[in-house]
């Protein structure tokens, strides 16, 4: 099982969408929220995605496809 810690950031037009619920339904991943700050304009959620590596990767791609920004919890590690 793989675990990936990410921060997802919602643009205003996605705020009302239940994307975390949808990702959990569409891919075989467990979503586990740790911290969040969501307002009517924007928001971010620190989230752990747990599942087989391929499913986690597909879930990340799926989140991006839904229009939310996905960043590693470490932010950029390329230095």
């Amino acid at each position, binding site marked *: 099982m*793989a*675990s*990936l*810690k990410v921060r997802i950031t919602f643009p205003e037009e996605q705020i009302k969408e239940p994307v975390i619920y949808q990702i959990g339904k569409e891919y075989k991943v467990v979503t586990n929220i*740790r*911290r969040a700050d969501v307002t009517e304009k924007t928001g971010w959620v*620190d989230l*752990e995605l747990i599942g087989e*590596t391929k499913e*986690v*990767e597909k879930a*990340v791609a799926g989140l991006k496809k839904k229009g939310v*920004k*996905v*960043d*590693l*919890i*470490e*932010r*950029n*590690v*390329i*230095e």
Partner: protein
Amino acid sequence: MTKMKALVCRECGKRYPLEPLHVCEFCFGPLEVEYNYDAIGREMSRASIEAGPKSLWRYAPLLPIEKEPTVGLYAGMTPLIHAKNLGRELGLDRLYIKNDTVNHPTLSFKDRVVAVALTRAREFGFDTVACASTGNLANSVASHAAQAGLRCFVFIPSDLEAGKILGNLVYRPTVVAVEGNYDDVNRLCSEVAGEYRWAFVNINIRPYYAEGSKTLAFETAEQLGWTAPDHVVVPIASGSLLTKIRKGLMELAKLGLIDQPHTKVSGAQAAGCGPVATAFEAGRDFIKPVTPKTIAKSLAIGNPADGYYALKAVRETGGSIASVSDSEIVEGISLLARTEGIFAETAGGVTTAVLAKLARQGKIDRRELTVAYITGHGLKTQEAIAGSVGDVVRIQPSLSHFEQTLQLKRDT
């Protein structure tokens, strides 16, 4: 009691054992080493430091290792130069340059953090080290790993220029060129770090690795005769360097080695990748990630891990953050070279140009003792100055043509 107490979450304060961990399992905040300053104070004095090795290891009690250092024994103790010529040009009476272009062995400040990271990695029993990098970090990790006999993996985006890769291949690491964009490389590295027992210096070893940057502050204070500067100008990539320079000065004060510092900490970014500068100018706490587009590749971190903390440090100390365009960066490289004889890479151009800008704007006072941190050698980014530093004077092989072309008159 040992000098390190625990890893502590910078957000929620939860404590963790001193292991290769970097993220709080509860709130996902970054972890940092907590020290036992009472114990350190008992073994560290100005005299003990001055009697130590001529390297960053003279400050070993304030670095996150448990035994004797084993990797990067000659890193650090780079010159602090009283930059009178540049100061005259910028109207700064007490300007100093901390010249990490001559760090050992790979000519950038990364030799400091990697020396600490790989020493710690060895203490943990790792036989493989890794990093994700587009330049300086890869160079330093590969070089130190070669010397230390550690297996080394360097991850790069596959579209990285060939020249940058050659400088890594010479040390014989495994360079993995990942098809995909920077986000993909980032994600893959995080996954690899989670699955393999490797010391990923800027992932699972990051709390220890980042502490190496404090040595720039320690050396500066010692080289100034055990005093803190009034103002420092520091390039911002991940933001870690800036926060650690401030932390280093605070630690020296905590141990009574210098007076309580009132150092203004200012940051330098490229306009083509200035998320922290933008947040500073907008008065925001939130760092909005950007897609980098700048010649200053070593500062091209669009979503900086420590951006928030760097911003906080600058605001708390009364410093500023400014950004400069690519042409200003090239001018900065040229200015530093023609005034002080120091050839810096593009990050040094950013720092010099921002230093000049802050001086012009009156944000650095003429009388402030100011230190600018120049973090990497110009030979690493020679392409940046191509076409902007003039050309050679071509002549025929005759004395008369030489004199005619250069309009010289012989001494009589």
